[in-house]
């Protein structure tokens, strides 16, 4: 009895979600079409391809550029850079985030430094990094990594801080030691936040490459 009831409940909730999903997609589609429409008529009125090209012109340019081998090569180089910088950001950000999430002392010590470094506009680093790392890939990578490392640190830290005390107590009362708690509780409980940080980092990585 109970099984059937809960199964049914699960299913109806699922289909409800699907319905909402479809609705949302339709709305998004409508907004998209609307924006393109306004753009199109605006472009025709202004009638200057330099100020505001029509959507069609943009689409043509996009098609010709994704088929242009040189642009594709550049794109792949940029992507590689973003990826590399992002990996450095992960490599540095995740451990720092965990340490700051777990230790209040570390948070106090590092928090101030990180906050002040974060305030420095990213462009201000350009001359300095060119001196440090020379011209070439170095400064770009540094910038991508630097802009990505903060959201990773902050989200990881918040993820760890947000873990319910009950989980720690439950794990301890079941005989878990510190290592097991880290592997079986802290990591899985904080992964969603780490991923959120990583997602933001990829975004800022792209932005800082431009």
């Amino acid at each position, binding site marked *: 009895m109970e099984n059937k009831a809960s199964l049914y409940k699960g299913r109806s909730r699922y289909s409800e979600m699907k319905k909402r999903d479809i609705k949302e997609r339709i709305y998004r589609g409508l907004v998209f079409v609307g924006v393109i429409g306004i753009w199109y008529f605006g472009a025709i009125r202004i009638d200057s391809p330099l100020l505001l090209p029509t959507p069609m012109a943009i689409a043509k340019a996009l098609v010709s550029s994704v088929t242009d081998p040189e642009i594709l090569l550049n794109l792949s180089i940029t992507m590689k850079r973003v990826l590399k910088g992002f990996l450095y950001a992960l490599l540095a950000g995740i451990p720092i985030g965990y340490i700051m999430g777990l230790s209040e002392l570390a948070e106090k010590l590092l928090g101030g430094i990180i906050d002040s470094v974060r305030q420095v506009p990213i462009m201000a680093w350009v001359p300095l990094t060119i001196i440090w790392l020379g011209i070439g890939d170095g400064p770009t990578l540094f910038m991508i990594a630097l802009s990505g490392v903060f959201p990773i640190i902050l989200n990881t830290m918040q993820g760890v801080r947000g873990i319910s005390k009950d989980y720690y*107590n439950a794990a301890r*009362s079941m005989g*878990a030691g510190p290592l097991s708690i880290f592997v079986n509780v802290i990591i899985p409980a904080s992964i969603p936040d780490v991923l959120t940080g990583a997602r933001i980092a990829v975004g800022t990585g792209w932005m800082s490459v431009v």
Partner: protein
Amino acid sequence: MELTVDAINKTFISNGNINQVLKDISFEVDKGQFISLLGPSGCGKTTLLTIIAGFQKPDSGSIIVEGKKVVKAGPDRGFVFQNYALFPWMTVKDNILFPMKQIKMPKAEREERLKVLLEMSQLEGREGLYPHQISGGMKQRTALVRALATKPSVLLMDEPLGALDFQMRQSLQDELEEIWLRDRTTVVMVTHDVDEAVYLSDRVIVMSTNKGQIVEDMNIELDRPRNRKSIEYEKYKNQLTIALTKASPEMTED
């Protein structure tokens, strides 16, 4: 003696307010006894239970389980949380296996025990589901057998059925009793439901909002399963209800 609570004191200081929650609380629990801590909201039940569990330390006094003084949480005391505290990233099966892996129970024994526990909690066929995919009652049963997996000397439960509706509650009381009767683990259960206390306990301790003072300590001498409609049952309930009014803030304020 399976569990000794000896002269426990606990005071909280928050925003300059000094709040003595537990003053000189002492009692002893025999092996295999099912006792309930009953009392109005805020009287210190959870505080006392978590001190027994080792989740926090008393200011003074000691907890002794099977002759050993408690210094921290450990698998000799199973704990059932009011909100279950199942690990949402683990399946029902992995949740139940977790404590057994922590104490390094051999694999064959683990699997054997898992089977028994799943059968006991009527969760067979559900072991692959995640906590968010099962009902409140099933979560409760998962939490219960997870706490019993390593055969602890004492099982501590903080309002284990508090989050369930009335009907679910009664049917789970029966299941809880049935599961408990198998091994007769020593139990300390926190509740503020008089009926639940009488239905399940061998003994009920009533705590007061005045520093957790014990205002009643009563043995329930009724055969199991108990008949809610019997006169004796009613008598116990009445006596405890009276004790509970004595324990409430209006009576203790000066």
